[in-house]
Every structure is written in C-alpha cells, then in structure tokens.
C-alpha cells in the first residue's frame, strides 16, 4: 500500500518537475541562447533560450583556418600536376602547355619568384567529388592549392559543381598550342638539319 501511494507521489512530483522545466524553457524562448564559445567561462550557463539558427540568413562563421572548399590560386600554379597524381578520387583534371621561350615573361612568375614554365588552360576541380582530404594541398610545391573556409556551396545543377580555374581562354589556348607546335617543328627541323650537317661532316 505504501508503494502505491509512493508511486502516486513520485508521479506527481516528477510531473511537476518536468512541467516546471518545460515552462522555464517556454518563457526563456524570448531570447536567444548565448553564443559563448567552448573556451568561454559562461559556456555551460547558457542552457536556455532559442538555439535555432535560421540557416541561410544566419550562419555560425567558420574558423579562418577551416578547410572546406578547394581553391586554386592559378596565378601561382606552375602546372606540375602533383595534385592530379596525389588525388585519391581523381577530382582534379589538368591540361598544360609548355611555355615558349619568348613567352616566359608573359607567363610570369609565381609570387615567390619562381618562373612558370607551363600554361594551365584546364584546371578543373569537381568539388562534388572532393572529400577535402587535403593530400593535394600538401603535395603542392607552390602552395597555390588550398582549402577555403567556404562551407556552403550547394548548387541546383550538378554541373555547376565543376569549378574551372584555367587561366587561358579557348582562343589563347589554341594560339599557344600552335605557337608551341611551330617552335617544336622548327626545333625538329633545326635538329634534323644539324644532324644532316653532322652526317655531312662525318662523310668528309
């Protein structure tokens, strides 16, 4: 019998406690839960208040050193292709054209003074595939490939997830290719000429 009344008492007390808690939360809904960080002294004191974030309009800022969307600073890219080989899921696609000797100045140098020897007409990163492992960024010799703090880059069309970083237009690419081909044919012709001369000299 005492158990019976004990149960009723426990029921009444626990219901009252629970209702007290929900009512406290109900009245605390007039203000937002504080935004103190984990290292803040008040972190565990800010239990009450609305905690919903109305996402597209309000965001928690990502840390400055956060590693999310991959970005290539193409001005510093020397087109070495290390990243393409390092990527475990092959999300980087790259095409390079050798720079003609008289174009070296036009192609320019990286920010730390290294002469770029490749045009990079195609540098495509499929960010839909990218798993932000960061291997490509570690192998990059000029540190031009890095993860940015941009975390939300959702798209309605999947093809928009393919990011193009190439620094040449189609016409330019065509021109550079032709130039290189000309130089190469020239060089080849010269080489053959030299070889023929050498043969002639040998005969003599």
């Amino acid at each position, binding site marked *: 019998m005492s158990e019976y009344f004990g149960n009723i008492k426990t029921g009444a007390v626990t*219901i009252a406690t629970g*209702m007290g808690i*929900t*009512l406290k939360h*109900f009245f605390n*809904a007039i203000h937002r839960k504080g935004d103190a960080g984990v290292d803040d002294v008040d972190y565990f004191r800010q239990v009450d208040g*609305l905690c919903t974030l*109305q996402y597209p309009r309000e965001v928690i800022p990502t840390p400055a050193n956060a590693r999310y969307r991959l970005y290539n600073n193409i001005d510093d890219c020397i087109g070495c292709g290390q990243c393409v080989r390092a990527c475990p899921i092959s999300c980087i696609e790259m095409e390079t054209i050798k720079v003609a000797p008289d174009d070296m100045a036009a192609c320019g140098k990286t920010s730390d003074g290294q002469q770029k020897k490749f045009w990079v007409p195609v540098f495509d990163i499929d960010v839909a595939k990218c798993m932000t492992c960061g291997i490509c960024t570690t192998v990059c010799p000029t540190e031009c490939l890095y993860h940015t703090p941009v975390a939300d880059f959702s798209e309605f069309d999947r093809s928009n997830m393919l990011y193009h970083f190439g620094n040449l237009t189609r016409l330019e690419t065509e021109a550079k290719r032709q130039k290189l081909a000309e130089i190469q044919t020239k060089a080849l012709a010269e080489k053959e000429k030299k070889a023929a001369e050498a043969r002639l000299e040998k005969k003599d």
Partner: protein
Amino acid sequence: MSTMVISQFSIPFLMGNSLNAWSDALAGFYLFGLPLGLVIIAAIPLVFIALYSLTYGVYGERKISAFMQDRLGPMEVGKWGILQTIADILKLLQKEDIVPASADKFLFVVGPGILFVGSFLAFAVLPFSPAFIGASLNVGLFFAIGIVAIEVVGILAAGWGSNNKWSLYGAVRSVAQIVSYEIPAAIALLCGAMMAGTLDMQKINILQSGSYGFAHFFLFHSPIAWLPFLIYFIASLAEVNRAPFDIPEAESELVAGYFTEYSGMKFAVIFLAEYGSMFMVSAIISIVFLGGWNSPLPNIGSVALNDWTNGPVWGAFWIITKGFFFIFVQMWLRWTLPRLRVDQLMYLCWKVLTPFAFISFVLTAVWEIYRP
C-alpha cells in the same frame, strides 16, 4: 447563492442581455419560413472551432511546442510564420482524396464524419456566454458526457474501415482508453453536479457567479473540490487522446494510429475533431469547476471589477479564455511527458483515478450534506 445575476454593465445589444437572450432571439429568426436562426446557432460553434484550430490550435501549438524545445517553429510563411496554417490548408485542399482499395469504403468515409459530429454535438450545450447557448437542456452536463461517446464509434469505424494493422491497433486502444476513462471523468463531473445540484449548464454557471469573483467557483467550493477537478482534467486528456495518453496515435509505434490511411480533407476533419474535443473538454472543466463565463475578478470595495467584467460579451471572453488556458495546459503536458504504456494507462485509470474519484464523490456528498 445569487440567482439570475446578469450584469447590466455590458454593451447593450438589440437582442437584450438577459439569460439566453441571443440564442432565443436567433432561434426565433425565420427567413422565408426556414429556421435560419437555428442554422446560425449551429454555425457559430462550427466557425469558432475552425478559426480557433486554425490559429491557436495548429499555429499556436507548433509555436508553443517549439518554444518549449528551444526552437523557433514555423518562421518562413509570412512574418513569424503566421500564414503557415493557411499554406497547410491550401495543401490539404489540393490533395487527392485517397480511399485505399482494400478499405471498407463506407466505414472509411463515414468514420471522420462521426468523429467530428461526436465532438461537435457537445458544443450544443456549452454556454458560450450568459446570453448564448446552443440548447439549454436541463440535462446539459449529462448530454455532454454521453454524446462524446459517439466519437468512439467514429474512431472504431475509421480504424476498422482502413483495413490496416496500425489503424486497427490504434482504434482498439482508443476505444479501450475512452471507455475506461469515461468512468472517472463522469464521477468527477458528478461531484461538480452535486455541488451545483443541477445538470443545467447555464444554472451551473449562474450558481458560481457572485461579487467575490473566483471565490464563488466550485473549485473553491469545498476543501475536496480540487480532487475531482484534477481527476477530470487527467481523464479528459485521455478522452481526447492527448499526450501523455496519445497511445491511439502513438506516432512512434503505430505511424498515426487510427488515421494512418487518411489524407487530404478527411485527415483535416479528423484533426478538426481533435481540436474541437480539446476545446470541448476544456470548456466543460471551466464550466463545472471554474465558473464558465463568470469573471474571476472580485469586487474590491468601490472598485467593482466583477461587475464591470461580467455580461454577455465579457462572458464569451471569459469562457474562451479559460478554455484556451486549459488547452495551453494540455499542450504544455504534451510537450513535457512521454507517452504511457497501455498497461500503465489502465493502471492509472482503474487503480488510481477511479478509486480517488469515488473517494472524492463520497467526500463531496458528505460535505454537501453536513457543510457548515
């Protein structure tokens, strides 16, 4: 006990301010020989249910539950999401009215109707104001308790007609629950009827009016009156299938219980019936124990708060406010307590509420006979 005290301080209406004046005037209103006034009397609670469930019922509950859980609730449609319910209704109206191929077509279609009619019929005897009551029956309270039992038929028809195991489980649970909880609920209300000495809803209200406001309410009528009040409140939760007694719906076990197969407007009707009966039990508990349309404010000397805040319009305000307060408590409980198990539900009904209801019944009877 004051009798027939209808304050004259309210806004004068063409129909007069005396007891049941508005509803009597409406009942006598004929157009082209048709009793149009009677239709209007029936339409008023219907419009009220629709409006209140649209605003307070759905939007209010979503907001209240959100705030209790530190969320924001609907925020996108309109400012603070106030148009969310309109958007929901537009969606419901456009939905295809599906009747499952293997369902019992007749029962499936008729179920929600019976359910709604069951909860709506009790509105006939709810005095919305001193001057308005649908049907001034001298057995109003008895009618209100009895007619609600029709809901069980609707739930069983819906559950059985759906030809779905979850629906059937939900319906069977609901029937067991409602039939069981009607006993403590009825006995608790009988305590109120004993204190009043009548079953007439308007007379119960009149008996609770007086210049001391809330002190005349039956809740403070006897030292034991809080017990039937509490018992009726708990039992009424079970009768309208609200949490923690929502095992007929039990969304985590039974998908949606007896209305699993319903969609579109039939679902909306079931929803409306639930909100209708929520207000109905809240109104009954405020009529029997908290003075119905009487103002709770007392007259303090020359500041006649009670006289100023009584009258037909004030009466409607008070009874709706009291009803909304109890609906808030129902929502508050819903977002606080977990659902009871079936055996716990029956334990609570038969081993706790029913004996205590009998005790309070006997004590109230003793108090009524030997009160000083």
